[in-house]
């Protein structure tokens, strides 16, 4: 069934193409970086590989947000917290890989711990010398946090703006906590000076290319998983909760569990994105918890088109490419440009780039995917044509007594 739908036409074909492109890029870019002479016109310089690898991680983060925001209406403004936690889990592994090559040469303790007079490794650092353990933590820590947070928030039926605010509060609280030196995560400076990952030098071109390929493959996989989730009966339910939560409850569904599952899956995806991001940028610090980072993710998804799978990816890639270019030319104006972009997209492209593209093409099937992206309360264009409820004829008291005593034709 699933494969049949996968190769079907329309919106599903777009998913297949996206996955194909990502997998192709995962092969072609490393080849063009490693196997082509730097003098060749086809050569891709290493810094581009690292930069685009970073963008792919952002795209994965935007896709994760879209699963909850676009498909379930949960506007999380704390997704960079899950991203950062995944990043920290990976960072801890990378720190342990440094071994005695640190400045202080301590085989067990990372430099910052020696500096802060730690006598031994804190308990929560145990196990992080193993990649498999770190990999599990990359999934488990963001997932668990989202599960606990969501369990309380959705059960108490916190929705809308209030939910957005508490997600901001969550990421802000983590920001403050990770800034503290005695938390044992490197405080202000975070974790950096990484040497190896799985025995390979993180700075080497081949390692960078491999990390790039891993990011592209992981994004392709996430596209597939999101597509499968969204297309399942559960996915229909997710959108149903977004559009008419109380209706789902009166049908017997537990809307809080529906949201909780998506929120947890989304957080795990964000954590993976963070874990792939850290070795490519070479550092993780509390700045990643910055509330404004989470808001930027929302802008990426909005620009690309929320409620579409491909949209947030395109949005993340374009906005970040724009950011790299802009901060090179007019660094002090970037935030204004970003804010202006968000306002412009909200006003002019409410369905984002993908939604715009679909309306241009007038593709009926694609239009449907875009209408999915609309706000729960706002009406779809076609819906406006349907008649508003008219008052039944006997609504007024005067008419009531009249119609009640009037002999009925049907009798």
């Amino acid at each position, binding site marked *: 069934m699933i494969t049949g739908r996968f190769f079907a036409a329309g919106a599903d074909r777009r998913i297949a193409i996206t996955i194909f492109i990502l997998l192709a890029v995962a092969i072609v870019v490393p080849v063009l970086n490693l196997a082509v002479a730097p003098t060749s016109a086809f050569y891709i310089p290493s810094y581009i590989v690292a930069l685009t690898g970073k963008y792919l991680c952002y795209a994965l983060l935007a896709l994760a947000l879209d699963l909850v925001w676009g498909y379930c209406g949960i506007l999380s403004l704390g997704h960079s917290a899950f991203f950062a936690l995944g990043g920290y889990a990976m960072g801890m592994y990378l720190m342990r890989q440094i071994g005695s090559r640190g400045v202080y040469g301590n085989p067990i303790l990372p430099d910052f711990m020696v500096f802060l007079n730690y006598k031994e490794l804190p308990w929560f650092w145990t196990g992080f010398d193993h990649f498999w353990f770190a990999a599990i933590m990359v999934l488990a820590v963001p997932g668990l946090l989202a599960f606990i947070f969501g369990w309380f928030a959705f059960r108490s039926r916190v929705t809308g703006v209030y939910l957005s605010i508490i997600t901001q509060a969550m990421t802000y609280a983590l920001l403050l906590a990770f800034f503290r030196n005695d938390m044992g995560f490197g405080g202000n400076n975070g974790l950096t000076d990484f040497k190896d990952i799985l025995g390979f030098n993180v700075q080497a071109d081949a390692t960078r290319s491999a990390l790039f390929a891993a990011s592209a493959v992981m994004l392709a996989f996430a596209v597939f998983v999101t597509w499968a989730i969204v297309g399942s009966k559960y996915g229909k339910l997710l959108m149903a909760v977004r559009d008419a939560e109380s209706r789902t409850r009166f049908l017997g569904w537990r809307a809080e569990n529906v949201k909780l599952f998506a929120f947890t899956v989304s957080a795990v995806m964000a954590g993976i994105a963070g874990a792939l991001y850290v070795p490519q940028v070479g550092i993780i610090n509390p700045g990643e918890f910055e509330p404004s980072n989470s808001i930027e993710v929302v802008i990426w998804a909005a620009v690309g088109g929320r409620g579409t799978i491909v949209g947030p990816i395109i949005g993340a890639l374009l906005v970040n490419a724009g950011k790299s270019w802009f901060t090179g030319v007019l660094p002090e104006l970037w935030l204004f440009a970003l804010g202006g972009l968000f306002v412009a997209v909200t006003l002019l492209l409410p369905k984002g780039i993908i939604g715009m593209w679909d309306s241009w093409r007038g593709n009926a099937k694609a239009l449907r995917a875009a209408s999915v992206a609309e706000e729960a309360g706002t009406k779809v264009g076609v819906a406006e044509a349907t008649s508003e409820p008219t008052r039944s*004829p006997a609504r007024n008291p005067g008419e009531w007594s009249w119609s009640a005593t009037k002999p009925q034709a049907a009798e």
Partner: protein
Amino acid sequence: MSKSNTILYLDGVSVSFDGFRAINSLSLVLDKGEMRAIIGPNGAGKTTMMDIVTGKTRPDEGEVFFDGEIDLTRHDEAEIAMMGIGRKFQKPTVFESHTIEENLMLALKGPRSIFPALFHRRSVAEARQIDDILGIIRLGSRRYDLAANLSHGQKQWLEIGMLLAQDPKLLLVDEPVAGMTDAETEETARLLKDIARDHSVIVVEHDMHFVRELGVKVTCLHEGSVLSEGTLDFVSADERVVEVYLGR
């Protein structure tokens, strides 16, 4: 009053919103298999009564029992729905970004947890059930259309169809014919009478033609309690009823 053989039993139920008593020691009993029409002026508390029965609103006092023995005040919306109470909202509420078929699929009786939904595959039996319901609600030709594209009256029917898919014991139907043409209204009356053959039903409606068409016992609510109860002729002849409708 004995609760046995009742599908719904409300006794001395009151609820206030910020000091305003929307339901005022309301008592109402519905026998198993009965269909009842509820009328009453705007703000009489008809919808609030349904909110209480379906677990959306907790009563401040009073008893609410389902099927003679289940205390509904101890359960939430999803549990109550699973016990067999279905509800059509006053404002038709369907999943607009889904097709008619998907709307019905989400309503079909069955497991309500996440993982079965995630790995769900439509069975032949389910497809047949959906066919049947589509026939009953006359939307067979619209199966793959988005619910957003339905007319107001068709949305009302789709919502009734979702109730049928849910297969509840008791249906609470709030203003089913608002916004319908006369022909559609008659059709709806026929549909509800059909449903009432093997379900208990409460219908709230302002349209007196329609209530007459149903031909069932009528309860008139006013200011949160029962003002009059009996046949439509009896209730509409009741001076107090005439007064609340005319005297405003």
